[in-house]
């Protein structure tokens, strides 16, 4: 059979450097899905951009062929003239990207941007184009297409933006769609729905799909063929059931061990009621203007344990983290109590005088999500690590320096790196550095706000190992914020699931995952893509729980904005329900 696209020995390089993509070959058959899998820096994005020749200006295709079979004719895209290539882009081969918000122009209406494809490639009138675009909107599951047509990107949610991007890519009925990490920036439940949409579109239109992803779970749900890449080379390729079922290459095996999986707990562990609470949120609410971001949250972080808050964007989880650190104050009536030691009195961090606040800040520190932007690029590592000591006037210069060396050793980095700047470090190393900085003042409590979600999967596992290790070694307590149940299942002692500012279910991870009661929790678990072709995403369960609270089943629905109470379902297991 003639394949739709075949890439042969493709090499891409920047300037005079060694090629970044080296002798990469793969083929895509009509109607099939090929997954390009790899971690950051593997060259997967460059390879797929090379197909349309939309590479950064400093990168060139060094050698190789990119042959597209176009109505029986073979065209080598690598050597096609720019003018002819424009006829292919968006028409025969189209592309969608990772961040829909940034990939759509903020100043043009959605309808304008989508119908532009038809105006460029089809000889059709404006009204005809609009009719086709509206039909496509309906097709990709955008309700009220007339409104979407007139809307600007920032008026839509992330999921709707990505649907609009998909409409833009598919409105001209291309033969090949290239999707570059199309769901990485989306919430878990939205990701499941967008993946489902892509699958449906493909089944109905028969277009081929190249899916670029780092997530083996996504691969297992979508792919027919898999190409595993690392450092610009193909490590392993073949059909999905072979590569996923019995990975041959050590690198593929390594990816599998690191892939986050929601574990199946056979027997829920017996929990003892923890009496020693280090941090306690009581009836904390936060209102911004007319928006209630957090609504009556009560949580306890037991000493030496990990309390996790799981939720999607807009759930209020990060606001909770900031309130817990006193970086933001809760609405009147809410309290945050901190108890330095089991014998000490609890202090309310909402009402601290400046001296107490300074004291509290030493004992509660934060680890941020993005290690690239949370370290100043103009500060050497030694300065970044000693700055907290400097601010709190602790120790002499020599003592601070010794402390910095000790910190680097604690997070598994070499003390010889002290004089380097952050750009010399990889993402995982930088996250180690920001953990080290958070440890500088010997805190008792760490608030970790999505500490692993900006990292590659293999690095993510290492950072979680490190967090567990220092928790035990330094007797830390964590308030751990995440959107990923698989991450949380690994590290947390107790999990609170948040949706739209409220906790909907709370339990130790074993109980929660073995016996989720709330439809939203069930949707979150079902939406998690597992790296196993025999456990596909259950879209029905996702659809049942992922919507707004007023679409939930009767027993859980909010009536007139009033939520049902959080009830005890069993010991240690709370569910927000009428039943």
């Amino acid at each position, binding site marked *: 059979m003639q394949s739709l696209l075949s890439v042969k020995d493709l090499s891409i390089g920047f300037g005079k450097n060694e090629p970044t993509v080296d002798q990469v070959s793969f083929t895509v058959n009509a109607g099939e899905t090929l997954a390009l899998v790899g971690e950051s820096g593997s060259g997967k994005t460059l390879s797929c951009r090379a197909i349309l020749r939309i590479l950064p200006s400093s990168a060139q295709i060094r050698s190789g062929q990119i042959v597209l079979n176009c109505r029986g004719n073979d065209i080598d895209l690598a050597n096609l003239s720019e003018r002819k290539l424009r006829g292919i882009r968006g028409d025969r081969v189209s592309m969608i990207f990772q961040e829909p918000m*940034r990939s759509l122009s*903020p100043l*043009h209406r959605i309808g304008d941007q989508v119908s532009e494809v038809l105006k460029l490639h089809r000889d059709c009138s404006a009204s005809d184009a609009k009719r086709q675009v509206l039909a496509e909107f309906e097709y990709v599951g955008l309700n009220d297409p007339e409104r979407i047509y007139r809307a600007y990107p920032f008026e839509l949610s992330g999921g709707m933006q990505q649907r609009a991007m998909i409409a833009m890519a598919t409105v001209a009925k291309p033969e090949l769609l290239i999707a570059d990490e199309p769901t990485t920036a989306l919430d878990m439940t939205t990701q499941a729905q967008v993946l489902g949409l892509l699958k449906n579109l493909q089944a109905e239109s028969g277009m081929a799909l190249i899916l670029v992803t780092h997530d083996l779970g996504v691969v297992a749900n979508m792919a027919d063929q898999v190409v595993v890449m690392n450092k610009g080379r193909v490590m392993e390729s073949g059909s999905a059931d072979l590569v996923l079922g019995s990975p041959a290459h050590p690198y593929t095996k390594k990816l599998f061990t690191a892939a986050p999986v929601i574990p199946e707990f056979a027997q829920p562990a017996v929990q003892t009621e923890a009496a020693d609470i280090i941090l306690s949120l009581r009836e904390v609410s936060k209102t911004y203007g007319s928006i209630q971001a957090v609504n009556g949250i009560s949580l306890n972080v037991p000493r030496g344990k990990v309390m996790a808050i799981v939720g999607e964007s807009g759930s209020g989880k990060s606001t909770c983290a900031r309130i817990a650190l006193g970086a933001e104050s809760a609405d009147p009536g809410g309290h945050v109590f901190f108890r330095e030691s089991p014998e000490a009195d609890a202090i309310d961090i909402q009402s601290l005088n400046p001296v107490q606040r300074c004291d509290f800040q030493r004992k509660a520190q934060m680890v941020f999500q993005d290690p690239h932007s949370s370290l100043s690029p103009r500060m050497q590592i030694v300065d970044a690590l000693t700055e907290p000591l400097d601010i709190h006037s602790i120790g002499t210069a020599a003592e601070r320096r010794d402390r910095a060396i000790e910190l680097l050793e604690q997070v598994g980095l070499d003390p010889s790196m002290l004089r380097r700047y952050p750009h010399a470090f990889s993402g995982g190393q930088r996250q180690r550095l920001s953990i080290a900085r958070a440890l500088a003042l010997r805190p008792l409590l760490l608030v970790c706000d999505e500490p692993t979600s900006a990292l590659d999967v293999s690095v993510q596992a290492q950072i979680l190992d490190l967090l567990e290790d220092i928790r035990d070694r330094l007797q830390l307590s964590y308030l751990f914020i995440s959107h990923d149940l698989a991450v949380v299942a690994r590290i947390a002692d107790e999990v609170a699931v948040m949706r739209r500012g409220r906790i909907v279910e709370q339990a130790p991870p074993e109980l929660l995952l073995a016996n989720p009661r709330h439809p939203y929790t069930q949707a979150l678990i079902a939406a998690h893509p597992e790296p196993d072709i025999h456990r596909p995403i259950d879209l029905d369960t996702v659809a049942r729980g992922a919507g707004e609270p007023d679409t939930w089943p009767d027993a859980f629905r909010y009536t007139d904005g009033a939520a049902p109470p959080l009830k005890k379902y069993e010991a240690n297991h709370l569910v927000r329900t009428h039943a």
Partner: protein
Amino acid sequence: MDIIKFALRRLATMMMTLLLVSALIFLIINLPPGDYLTNQIAELRSTGQESGVAKAEFLRKEYSLDRSLPEQYLIWLGVWPGPHGFSGLLQGDFGWSFEFNKPVSEVIGSAMWMTILVNLVAVLFVYMVALPLGVLAAAKSRTWIDYVSSFVGYLGLATPNFLLALILFYYGNKYFDLPIGGLMAAEFEGQPMSFEKIKSVLLHLIVPTFVIGTAGAAAMMQRLRANMLDELNKPYVTTAWAKGVPPVKLLAKYPLRVAFNPFVADIGNLIPSLISGSVLVSVVLGLQTIGPALLAALKSQDQFLAGFVLLFVAALTLIGTMVSDLLLVLLDPRIRFGARVR
């Protein structure tokens, strides 16, 4: 209709700002000890011309310079009765220029319109030069086109305006027969508008526009280039690229629209810098704008003339800012929606 509401609100704040500015201007002009007339009286006394002293004393009363400063200010505005009842800016009486010995309105008169004309043409020149060059320099960044246009731009920034003026006058006259100095040929002075007069004015405007505009154009070009370069790497540009949009349309429709914002926002800032920059140039080129009059008035503490000119420049600036704000609201939906929420 949101836009009209926005414009009205903007107009109201502009009026408030103008009021505040007028008070500041009046205060600052009166900060040095004495005024034009006390200085004159002192000079007359020392030279023994007692007859002139009486006249100056009379003028002091006539223009209420003998009153307290706040009173003077209010009379100048026209909200407080002076020797001749309410007669100030609000009533259209701009006061008396002691330096030129005639009413301020007569001193300024045609110069005001000439100032507006010269600056409008200069602003247009700045935009017409900076827009294509800035986009070109960004699109062809790190090529000889970029380097040459940057070089020319920096040359324009670095050359003193008056020097450029003299050079251009010399060579413009030598090779292209361009007129030297003034804003129109002498025979049209005071004549009613005619086709010939307009032609003469336009011919006279070429060199001044170039001189006043180059620095502004060079600075703006560099800003636009930097903004464009920031935008060119954004994902939405890649999206358009992957759609098959042809290169020129791609640049114009997507990154330029976004990079345009600071460009538009600069209209307001451009006017004061052009006017203050053009004072020197106007003196050198002999342009009948208000620049030279302002210089003379400030030197001799001719307070009504100086006050009016400064207020006029402030009003032009505020109008420029308002125009750019309104344009931004029209151009950028994000600002439009932000304004609606508030």
